């Protein structure tokens, strides 16, 4: 399942909802991405996430389906926020549930690596010197490329 929303999410509530009635789950891995206050040398006051409504959901669904093709997942959830977020706020949640931990850990890493390079979101950072679009990192491309096959 995937969701794109402006509002915050409750990790505990999302995990409970994901595993409700699913007694075959042996473990759930959770990745939570937060707004970091330091970007390079800059102290951030906030970050604004823009996205492409429609394409974002489509890309996230494709990535989620790919994870289910590759690993025996019982359930998964991606929640990604947009709008203006301040340091310490939650940006993204990836939950992966499986009978065994290997699949849950690997699929979780795959999902966050792939969504970083495929889901159409753009971050703009606000600091004392103004606001600037974040440039894509080649390290993110390298992380995503590990899962190409």
């Amino acid at each position: 399942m995937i969701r794109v929303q402006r509002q915050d999410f409750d990790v505990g509530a999302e995990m409970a909802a994901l595993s409700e009635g699913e007694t075959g789950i042996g473990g759930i891995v959770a990745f939570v991405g937060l707004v970091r206050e330091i970007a390079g040398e800059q102290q951030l006051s906030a970050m604004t996430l823009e996205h492409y409504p429609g394409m974002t959901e489509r890309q996230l669904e494709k990535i989620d389906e790919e994870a289910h093709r590759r690993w025996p997942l019982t359930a998964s959830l991606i929640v990604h926020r947009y709008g203006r977020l301040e340091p310490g706020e939650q940006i993204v949640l990836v939950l992966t549930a499986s009978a065994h931990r290997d699949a849950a850990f690997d699929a979780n890493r795959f999902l966050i690596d792939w969504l970083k390079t495929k889901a159409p979101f753009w971050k703009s950072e606000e600091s004392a010197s103004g606001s600037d679009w974040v440039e894509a990192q080649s390290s993110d491309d390298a992380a995503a490329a590990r899962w190409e096959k």
Partner: protein
Amino acid sequence: MKVLYFAWLRERTGTGEEDVSLPPDIVDVAGLIEWLKGRGPGYAAAFEDLTAVRVAVDQEYVGLDRPLDGASEIAFFPPVTGG
């Protein structure tokens, strides 16, 4: 045909979305970009470095050689930075 711009491409072109009627000799994404560049300095600035521009046709990633046949929505944006 609907054309969308995001992030700094939206800022440089000065628009997030517009409807365009293309001349018949514009057949692919590369041709569309050349045509858009002629619309003003903001457009020329948006498309000055195509290595920093990604393209989606009907919400799927495509290359510059993608024909425009049957396309209804074309989006231009920088490499993505979510997560």
